[in-house]
């Protein structure tokens, strides 16, 4: 792919096909940690880190272990184990060598194992038959898109504390409606890539 193609690919993954708002991956933590800005930023950083690492490692596992041994049907089990082990490993290494970062990301790391965005991106990388560089770029762009949506949403949600609203809508309910409008705003970018 040329440089222009990569730019198109990146813009598409961040804005147009945003992993959270257009592909519905990773919505539980999206609603769970978006009540405050600092937790949303912490989660975003952890997602960027783990998603890129997991994307690369699952790609290597797929093409150097599963395909040569003809056991592609074990993909789901293999990937979730790789992600769980990776998260655990990152946690241990980070606690030892980067204590400051560990304290910032600490509680979000274990939550990421069940963040379907990470497993989702790993599976999309394989389904779309990306090569290694594509995988790297796509994982990073998806993670950035995730963070962008999460931080924007947390910014909006902080304002709810000051707003009067019907009792039935309080909490997750109004959060989902607002997420819908955020998704609508993001879908406005589809003209950028064209053909969608």
């Amino acid at each position, binding site marked *: 792919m040329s440089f222009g193609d990569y730019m198109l690919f990146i813009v598409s993954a961040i804005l147009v096909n945003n992993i959270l708002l257009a592909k*519905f991956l990773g919505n*539980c933590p999206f609603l769970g940690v978006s009540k405050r800005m600092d937790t949303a930023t912490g989660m975003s950083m952890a997602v960027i880190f783990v998603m890129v690492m997991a994307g690369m490692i699952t790609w290597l596992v797929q093409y150097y272990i599963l395909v040569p041994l003809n056991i592609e049907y074990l993909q*789901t089990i293999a990937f*979730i184990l790789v992600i769980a082990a990776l998260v655990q490993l990152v946690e241990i290494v980070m606690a030892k060598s980067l204590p400051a970062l560990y304290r910032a990301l600490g509680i979000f790391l274990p939550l990421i*194992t*069940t963040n379907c965005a990470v*497993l989702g991106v790993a599976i999309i990388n394989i389904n779309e038959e990306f090569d290694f560089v594509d995988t790297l770029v796509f994982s990073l762009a998806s993670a950035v898109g995730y963070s962008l949506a999460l931080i924007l949403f947390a910014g909006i949600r902080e304002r709810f504390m000051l707003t009067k609203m019907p009792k*039935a*809508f309080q909490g997750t309910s109004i959060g989902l409606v607002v997420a819908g*409008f955020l998704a609508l705003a993001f879908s406005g970018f589809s003209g950028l890539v064209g053909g969608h």
Partner: protein
Amino acid sequence: MSITREFTKGLWEILPPFRLVLGLCPTLAVTTSAENGMGMGLATTFVLVCSNLLVSLLRKIIPSKVRIAAYVVIIASFVVIVELMMQAYAFPLYQALGIFIPLIVVNCIILGRAEAFAGKNGPVASIADGLGVGIGFTISLAVLGAFRELIGSGTVWGNSVFWESFEPFTFMVRAPGAFVALGLFLAAINLISSKLDDRKRRAQS
């Protein structure tokens, strides 16, 4: 608690995804029609019941330090079974649900029930719990899917129901509509349950 009680609590008290706000990704993604919602619900129910049973049988063998990893492996095995069975017997549905079938592994409802219930209770109660929660989830997805399908494409179970010049409100079947529809449903359920609580309190006093 009796077995019936374990079963029925999944249908209202902890009804996912409305009362127990978990498993949102498949809820948002596959409810573009009643049929897809129901297929996803049934696949999840199967995995949930099987994993609840196995987790409950193995609850004394699995060391508590590695229990989450063990649960994930158990769940993933059943998801692979569902995936292969759907490829063989329900291929159109398999294609419609796409990536969300392998992603049943990370559906927090299943891991949540394994951790909160099956890891502490006997096999029969765990099956009842899994069935209740699973059927509750299936009904929720089917109802949400039917609502979005009716408004968004003007059809019920694939059959057109409106007059010929009816212009469907396609917002509802697209991504933003998923969030808005689920938010509105959640608000409705909140309203109903607060009304019910009020009535109960008034009956007691």
